[in-house]
């Protein structure tokens, strides 16, 4: 039985946008120009490859279904009963790591536990020793306090990071374009009202707006982990997802910058010759906006999208650390850091939890930054001519 979370849609949308871009580059249009610009540097292509791998992991982690439980209990019922756990393709592929549960900490690739415990010897005496692991040698990054595999958890953080990084911007792009364009194009009272709204929103410190919003809405709906029957609509769709609320509020706080940029660009565009020519030929306002203004704003949208991606990923970790990010059941690097925050002060240091989370984050944010710079250079004609 498939389960689709609201946030899964972002991942599908992102992958679809990527696919669309690839198809577009086969022609000779603007997309092909951009790609040619991007391909000039090997570093950019390497960054793009890493990002594609991360996106692939996120996609695998966003395709999920519930297994049918064909037990005797289910047989008595009218219809089949499904497990509350909706495992994703990724969970199933990494099943070996997910189920290899140890008792507590073990260091990377160890064969024994990290802490001593009482063991009953054959002779009947009790001695304290490092107990052997149940699954020695498969934990590339060791295990955490409750014995889960760290590598598996770090990989589970990918989906959350991608969704926050991409989803928060995706969710607000239509609104930013709509309000930015009508403010810039029509001017007057509409412009004043829209400017007032975004100035007011921008005045509230982002992090506090997020805090207030998440305290009020965050506890409703699906929090991660098992899917409760109440959460599911139509048997397959989970519309109310805590991660979704987080994307929404991160979007609202970052909406204002994009809207301001679009408004300014529209102000400029509507006076350009080709728009005036269209007007002289009798094109309606909507037609001009749709055919001449919006397509010429898209570079701003793309630049904002890639530039915000990495800062949103970093923000997710901080928010989860403060306790207003994703739910504790959702795998995320912020949650990993939060649980492991005191481990460096243990007597033999437990470093692999933090290392796993920070490495996962770093190897996503670094390529994202490199790629964002390249995209900005490729799309910004002012920079390109230099």
């Amino acid at each position, binding site marked *: 039985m498939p389960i689709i979370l609201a946030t899964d849609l972002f991942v599908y949308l992102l992958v679809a946008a990527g696919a669309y871009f690839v198809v577009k580059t086969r022609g000779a249009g603007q997309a092909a120009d951009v790609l040619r610009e991007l391909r000039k540097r090997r570093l950019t292509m390497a960054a793009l490859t890493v990002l594609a791998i991360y996106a692939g992991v996120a996609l695998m982690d966003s395709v999920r279904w519930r297994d049918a439980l064909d037990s005797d209990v289910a047989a008595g019922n009218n219809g089949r009963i499904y497990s509350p756990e909706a495992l994703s393709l990724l969970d199933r592929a990494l099943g070996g790591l997910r189920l290899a549960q140890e008792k507590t900490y073990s260091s990377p690739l160890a064969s024994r536990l990290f802490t001593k415990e009482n063991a009953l010897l054959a002779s009947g005496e009790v001695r304290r020793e490092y107990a052997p692991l149940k699954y020695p040698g498969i934990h590339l990054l060791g295990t955490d306090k409750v014995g889960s595999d760290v590598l598996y958890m770090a990989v589970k953080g990918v989906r959350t990071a991608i969704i926050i990084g991409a989803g928060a911007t995706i969710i607000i792009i239509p609104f930013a374009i709509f309000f930015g364009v009508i403010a810039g194009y029509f001017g007057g009272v509409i412009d004043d009202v829209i400017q*007032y709204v975004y*100035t*007011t*929103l*921008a*005045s*509230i*410190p982002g*992090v*506090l*707006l997020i*805090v*207030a*919003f998440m*305290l*009020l*809405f965050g506890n409703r709906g699906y929090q991660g982990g098992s899917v409760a029957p109440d959460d599911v609509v139509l048997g397959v769709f989970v519309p109310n997802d805590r991660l979704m609320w987080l994307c929404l509020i991160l979007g609202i706080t970052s909406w204002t910058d994009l809207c301001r940029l679009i408004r300014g660009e529209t102000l400029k565009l509507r006076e350009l010759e080709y728009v005036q020519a269209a007007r002289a030929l009798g094109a309606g306002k909507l037609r001009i906006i749709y055919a001449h203004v919006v397509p010429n704003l898209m570079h701003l949208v793309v630049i904002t999208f890639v530039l915000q991606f*990495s800062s949103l990923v*970093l923000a997710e*970790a*901080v928010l989860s*650390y*403060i*306790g*207003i990010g994703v739910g504790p059941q959702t795998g995320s690097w*912020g949650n990993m*850091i939060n649980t492991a*925050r005191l481990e*460096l*002060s243990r007597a033999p*240091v437990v470093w692999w939890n*933090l290392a796993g989370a*920070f490495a996962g*984050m*770093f190897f996503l*944010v*670094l390529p*994202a*930054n*490199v790629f964002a*710079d390249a995209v900005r250079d490729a799309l910004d004609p002012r920079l390109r001519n230099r």
Partner: protein
Amino acid sequence: MLTYIIRRLLYAIPIILGVNMLTAALFFQINTPDDMARRMLGEKNVTVDAIENWKREHGYDRPAFVNTGASGTAMFTQTVFFQKSAPLLWFDFGRSDRNNINIGLEIRNRMWPSLAVSIPIFMAGLIVEIFIAMMLAYWRGSVLDLAVVVLSVVMMSVSTLFYIIAGQFMLGKVFKLFPISGYDTGIYSFKFLVLPVVIGVISSMGVGVRFYRTVFLEEMGRDYIRTARAKGLSEGTVLFKHGLRNAMIPVLTNVVVSIPFLFYGSLLMETFFAIPGLGSFTIDAIQSQDFAVVRSMVYLGSILYIVGLILTDISYTLFDPRIRLG
């Protein structure tokens, strides 16, 4: 000039009112006083009486915006909005929901530790970043320039949490140079402040160096710089006498906009280093779900932001002779 400042201040009034209304709507309408009472008293087994009692004690037992039970001006003054949110306009923050402490007094007390951390971070960061950025502008295109740019992209990609945790571990625990966290009053606070300041400067360095480098390079590409070079001036004179002075305009405005936020401190720094400032005050309020405090801090933050914007506009007119007051 004066009329400009006055007009700029008048523009701020509707925005401040808007922020106040928005926070009131968020905290009183979407999250009703009943919800608040239930959170405070524990989610389960709360009687209606207990909720009413809590609301009466904390002054949330009035209607939200319009009190139809009263007459005259009391219709608007005897409401939750007027009693709880409007006083923020004249900086009366009221009392917290959980411990009944005076929020305004708490803010005044906690302001100083916040400033003690944020001012050194800000000043040291600014000096280091501008110094490095100027060196890069001087030797632009060299191996050093490339190396530092790459390094700053790498530094930008590392989470602030990493800088804090790694810094506490290396400098505090392994080398035992500074106490890991804590705070003291007066001059004794110095030894507690070094570590957060060092970490704060390092964690913002990647972004800062890149920003200032772009500013300087943009300035160095202008026509008057070419003229100065054509006159036969040395590269150092061109950079420091001509370039730097003009690049200071964007730098200064960037500085001015962040000054009000120094009061606010940093949420993360203060919690990690146990500094009793406004940031940790906010975090504590978040974790104990004390909405009166969160509301006050949201409002205070907005005011500081608006003040920053006004200062920026004024500083533009002061420092940039090209901008004349209209």
